[in-house]
């Protein structure tokens, strides 16, 4: 094994070992140390791998199964152990659905493995720069979230199992994005399902148990779709290697079914409409868990899987349209629903689903520009979303709630938290930051998919509304007693430094956009642009760096120059009356309409998913009929 292979193994194994150690440690102080050491090791490994591969000019690292000694035969054992665990969990929670879903996976998988159809398919691991983006996000953002959790969970009684699940989650994610063999991929996929179940259930309240069970049911359904996809892929394509499927030429008819099942699996993992309920329910978990699920792990895996499958999906017009529509529709639906939410965590959850929908849209379109937009969005969304969740977490840690209404006047009571919120919203919404660049590119590529452009139009408008509304609430001057309150209690170091790191990352990477493209994104896309302009050059140019400099210098200068003197401060106009008032926010969509809208959106999405499977069958039927007619004719 060379250095690359060792680093890949470490990225998988270090967090798992760290998690295992946490389970055995009685003292909190030691668990905190183990978590910090694991996090540092993980960050170091991911950066080392990135530097090594960049310096060595290597774009892909492939490993065959026999090279990966510690793993080899373990995969199947772990896979079945996980499925049996799900089965047992189903019995414990008395959920027949979970039991049925687990059995439905165990039986076909056992048949598939015992018949030896999956043997000797190599390279089992294939790590490219799409995986690199994921590994960097998981390892760095994920580690920061773990460090943050040390403070956030200070009153929790079950540290060992909490941190064990958090760390193993990171290892499973890192493992998943290295796999080329789909059976290996399945193992890591199921491991993330188990970790998310454990973390959502962590607080053991009735609500937590219910949400965890729902998440388990939906993602297990996705696991079943993946198993079926793998078996059908072997049948139709003769291979269960991602690299072989994606290299596939034009597919038609029933041969589209494996891709349909895999797309379905990805939709459940990324919580696309109509599967969004599990991610919304997952909000009962502690905030670091939400941050982990939404930015560093879990939901990204579905989007990543579709980006990997993009060459195959985008080569078939029917699949391309349906998958693209599911993504775009999820973006539209969640952007509208988010306007009506009064809980900041739910707003963020809808925004996550929407942004992943955009990535999935990019994967479906599949041109170089589209993949570029998808990868940029994957990276920058993760950073900004982690920042936003952790910011809400600080607020929740102080006040015990995450509603938007009590955030009135946060600017006065907690300048640091409101600043973090400002940076988070600006980097996820406004130019010239990273998410904007990908929105721009998505709009450019949507030119060939005009019905989708209408969805984007409304979605972009709605996302401005719900983010500006929330930020406005935090930046509004609060009630008078708020303003007289002493400026914020001291923010704990764990909170402060993780938030600072994310703020710095979100802003600095926007400045380094060109380097990000050259060193991180173009190695995967194959094109090596000289500068940013060539990538965007097909449509238009903009000196992004210049724009960034102008904006930031002005903003900094203005904040330095504007120091109001006491005599120039006035008070607001209230028709001369000394009345005290408090404005409440507007949410426009009441609960009844929210339910109605949600079910309407769900039905639309279910129709799309039905089309995903009906169309390949119909095509096949038509082809058969045409052949039959041609055969009958002389």
């Amino acid at each position: 094994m060379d250095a690359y292979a060792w680093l890949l193994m470490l990225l998988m194994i270090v967090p798992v070992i760290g998690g295992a150690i946490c389970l055995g440690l009685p003292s909190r102080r030691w668990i905190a140390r183990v978590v910090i050491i694991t996090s540092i090791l993980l960050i170091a490994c991911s950066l080392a791998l990135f530097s090594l591969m960049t310096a060595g000019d290597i774009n892909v690292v492939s490993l065959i199964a026999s090279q990966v000694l510690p793993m080899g035969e373990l995969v199947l054992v772990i896979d079945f152990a996980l499925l049996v665990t799900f089965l047992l969990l189903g019995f414990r929670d008395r959920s027949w659905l979970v039991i049925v879903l687990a059995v439905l996976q165990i039986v076909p998988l056992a048949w598939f493995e015992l018949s030896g159809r999956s043997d000797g398919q190599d390279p089992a691991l294939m790590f490219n720069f799409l995986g690199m983006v994921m590994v960097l996000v998981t390892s760095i953002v994920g580690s920061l979230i773990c460090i943050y959790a040390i403070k956030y969970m200070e009153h929790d009684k079950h540290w060992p199992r909490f941190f064990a699940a958090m760390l193993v989650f990171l290892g499973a994610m890192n493992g998943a994005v290295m796999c080329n063999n789909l059976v290996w991929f399945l193992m890591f996929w199921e491991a993330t399902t188990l970790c998310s179940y454990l973390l959502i259930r962590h607080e053991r309240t009735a609500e937590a148990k219910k949400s965890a069970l729902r998440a388990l049911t939906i993602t297990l359904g996705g696991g079943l779709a993946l198993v079926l996809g793998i078996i059908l892929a072997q049948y139709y394509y003769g291979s269960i290697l991602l690299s072989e499927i994606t290299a596939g030429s034009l597919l038609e008819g029933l041969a589209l079914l494996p891709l349909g099942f895999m797309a379905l699996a990805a939709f459940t993992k990324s919580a696309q409409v109509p599967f969004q309920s599990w991610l919304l329910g997952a909000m009962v978990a502690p905030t670091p868990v939400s941050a982990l699920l939404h930015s560093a792990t879990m939901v990204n895996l579905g989007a990543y899987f579709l980006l990997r499958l993009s060459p195959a999906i985008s080569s078939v017009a029917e699949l391309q349209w349906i998958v693209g529509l599911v993504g775009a529709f999820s973006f539209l639906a969640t952007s509208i629903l988010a306007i009506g939410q009064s809980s900041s965590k739910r707003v963020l959850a809808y925004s996550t689903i929407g942004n992943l929908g955009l990535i999935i849209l990019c994967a479906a379109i599949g041109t170089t520009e589209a993949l570029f937009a998808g990868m940029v969005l994957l990276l920058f969304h993760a950073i900004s979303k982690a920042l936003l969740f952790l910011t809400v977490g600080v607020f929740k840690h102080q006040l015990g709630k995450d509603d938007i209404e009590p955030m009135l006047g946060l600017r006065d009571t907690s300048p640091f938290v409101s600043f973090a919120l400002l940076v988070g919203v600006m980097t996820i919404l406004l130019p010239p930051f990273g998410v904007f660049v990908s929105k721009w590119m998505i709009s450019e590529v949507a030119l060939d998919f005009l019905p989708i452009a209408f969805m984007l139009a409304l979605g972009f408008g709605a996302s401005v509304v719900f983010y500006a509304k929330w930020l406005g609430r935090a930046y509004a001057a609060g009630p008078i007693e708020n303003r007289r309150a002493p400026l914020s209690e001291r923010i704990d170091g764990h909170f402060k430094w993780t938030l600072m790191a994310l703020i710095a990352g979100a802003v600095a990477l926007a400045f380094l956009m060109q380097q990000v493209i050259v060193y991180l994104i173009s190695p995967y896309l194959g094109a090596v642009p000289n500068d940013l302009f060539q990538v965007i050059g097909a449509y238009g140019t903009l000196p992004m760096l210049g724009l960034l400099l102008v904006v930031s210098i002005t903003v900094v200068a203005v904040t330095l120059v504007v120091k109001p003197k006491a005599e120039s401060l006035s008070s607001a106009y209230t028709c001369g009356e000394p009345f005290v008032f408090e404005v409440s926010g507007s949410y426009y969509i009441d609960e009844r309409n929210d339910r109605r809208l949600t079910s309407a959106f769900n039905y639309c999405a279910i129709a799309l998913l039905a089309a995903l499977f009906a169309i390949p069958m119909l095509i096949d039927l038509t082809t058969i009929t045409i052949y039959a007619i041609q055969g009958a004719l002389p």
Partner: protein
Amino acid sequence: MTPTAQVITSLVLLVAAPLAVGVLLGVDRKLTARMQNRVGPPILQPFYDILKLLGKRRSLLNSGQVCFAQCCLLFQLLALAVLVFGGDLLVVFFLSSAGSVFLVLGAFSANSPFSQMGAQRELLQVLAYEPVLFIVIMAVGFDQRTFLAAQIDRMLLAPLFLAFIALIPVLIIKLQKSPYDIATAHTELVSGPHIEYSGPYLAVVELAHWLEIAVLLGILSLFWYDPNIWVSIAGKATLILVAWFVVMIIDNVTARLVRKRMVSFTLSFGFTLVALNLILLHYVLPGVGL
């Protein structure tokens, strides 16, 4: 044109466009007054207003309010700059949209009921006009196969006539005219998002508004193109004046609508027209050999 001449032209446009908007606003006030049998202010009144405001004593509620106002001005200026330098229309759209976000944040940051309600209403206006503006820009891109303003070298008015009509409600909202003067509703909200600005800071917000209008008028002017530069300029000017005049007439014969009606009407009207236009352009016209 040589590159230097182009840069100089663009810079001149960057300065001239907001000034022209100021004059147009003056004419607008004069004409509206005449329609209502009043004498009305001098045509240059908007400039006198700005100059007067700039000379006033500084007075503010908090520093955030001022920062947001200045960011609003900055982003509208950047949007106009990208447009006059022939840049990407989508970037113009996103930059101008960022300007609106900062205007809303500035309004939120004042603890006045009028200002807060104005901000909420301004957001609804954003929800009403931004999707339409975006989809019209997409239609332009679809027709021209480029989003670069500088590369548009055909007449857009004929193929995209319906899309042009879809921009009229957008112009009504941006000009704060009836029936869509929802946010600044002078009879109840006393100029909404602008209410808590005074003196030089009000001038900043006003200038940002001029620039915002200039950006939209710039996009409108792209619909006319002629190889002869003078014909082109005359055509663009006529197009803008006609659109503005239509808006003024609508302003004088309608009363303010409720918020919900504004959002649903603007979106359905705009989306339907643009969709019809695109269907015509993509399917029908090539079918009949046009």
